[in-house]
């Protein structure tokens, strides 16, 4: 049973005259930890939003968890969790209220949601913050609560769009710890977008996006080998002709 979790064929998106994503062919296997690496503006978020049915493709098709993104939006959204670059939590509601709201959006009965929320918040070290308004949380805690929100409905595939943007190094480390634990526990497929090379390093495979085009695809060692690079950073430079960290932040 090695059905592709994600299968994109010639997927593309234009915003007016701007070609955000050209024609992307991508197959991500079930259970894979997959990285989309590229600078800001490379088309990473556009790719995620197309796969999550938040945007309609300008061309091409994609299947996510076996469902067509154009015709089976509800089925696609049922199988995925998405953690956006910026928080989606309601700052005026408490952590618990936010997660209960999310649970209802995913049609989880309260008796199922309640223990799950409890477990997740404990796992993300937010157990004590259930009744605190989200606006009182630190950036790291907010991101953790956002991830808890993203996996509450136990999706098959989790999209993490620049999950560490704006976090301090300690919060970053603990976030990776948590994602590792999640993958080990559930065999979750994870699609991570990042513009930090070191975050792509632990991925099973990495796709390098630049100016809306896929310029390289392979395991991190393969990407380095192909151009005789010693680091992924060098490999990125060789594949794209420019440095990754031109701009920073979200």
């Amino acid at each position: 049973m090695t059905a592709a979790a994600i299968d994109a064929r010639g997927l593309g998106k234009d915003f007016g005259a701007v070609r955000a994503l050209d024609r992307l062919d991508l197959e991500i296997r079930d259970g894979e930890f997959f990285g989309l690496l590229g600078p800001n503006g490379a088309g990473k978020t556009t790719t995620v939003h197309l796969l999550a049915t938040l945007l309609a493709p300008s061309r091409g098709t994609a299947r996510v968890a076996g469902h067509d993104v154009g015709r089976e939006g509800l089925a696609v959204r049922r199988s995925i969790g998405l953690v956006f670059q910026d928080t989606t939590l309601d700052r005026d509601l408490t952590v618990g209220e936010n997660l209960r709201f999310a649970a209802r959006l995913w049609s989880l009965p309260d008796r199922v949601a309640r223990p799950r929320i409890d477990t997740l918040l404990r796992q993300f070290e937010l157990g004590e913050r259930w009744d605190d308004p989200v606006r009182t949380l630190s950036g790291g805690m907010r991101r953790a609560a956002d991830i808890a929100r993203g996996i509450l409905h136990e999706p098959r595939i989790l999209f993490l769009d620049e999950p560490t943007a704006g976090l301090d190094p300690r919060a970053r480390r603990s976030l990776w710890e948590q994602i590792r634990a999640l993958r080990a526990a559930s065999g979750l497929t994870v699609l991570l977008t990042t513009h930090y090379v070191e975050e792509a390093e632990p991925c099973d495979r990495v796709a390098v996006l630049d100016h809306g085009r896929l310029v390289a695809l392979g395991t991190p060692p393969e990407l380095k080998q192909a151009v005789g690079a010693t680091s992924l950073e060098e490999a990125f430079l060789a594949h794209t002709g420019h440095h990754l960290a031109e701009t920073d932040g979200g």
Partner: protein
Amino acid sequence: MSVRAVYGIVAREFVRFLRQRGRVLASIGRPFVWLVFAGGGFAAVFAGRNEIDYRVYMAPGLLGMVVMFGSLLAALSTVTDREAGVLRMVLVAPIRRSTVAFGKALGATLLGTAQAIVVAAILLPVVQLRPTLAGMLLGLVALVLSGLALGALGVVLAASIRSIENFAGVMNFVVFPMLFLSGALYPVRHLGPVLRAVAYVNPLAYGVDLLKHALLGRWAGAGYGGELSAPLDCVALVLFAIVGLAVAAPLLGREGGVTRAAFRDRR
């Protein structure tokens, strides 16, 4: 349609509303400010006519105003949902865009209706208006249908306007004309043909008309009751709600729930 998702959206609206004390006080206090200041002044102009006290005449309009502000503002909060990112959480959930639009409009309806009931409980005794049981029931129908029509309109506006800064424009060019052309303060039939035509594409006009049927039946003979037939008012309000929701649903999902400019920045 996911009932649980709709319930979740509605419950969140109520929690947010009750937590904003200023909004609660404003919604309950606003009609009384109008009653005292506008009502006091117009009552003096009206004084020659002794069929009805102006403050009694404006009571249905004030309740319509409460529903309008309550429902429209609640539905317009979709703009803040989009700016704060919450809308994306909703859009990535496995529910239809139409369910999202309906949930928002229903939350707005129930909030607007609840506010109007609280205001009615104070206002009607103050102006010494004692509706019959049938009048009260029809009044409730009027509040709910007006709330739904205005809530749907609010979601359409929220999905179309770009940012919170456009709120003032909405207030000036939508809310105030809608209020003045609703029959809340003066009978629509006295307006010239152009304004009267505009009044009839105003959902609030039908809501206020229905409220007049409900509360001012006793003065119908003197020309202060509803001007259209009550069933027509109901049909018009339901149509506004249906058309509004049908238009709002696709607009909500546009650009993945973020403004295009914001999206371009973070692509």
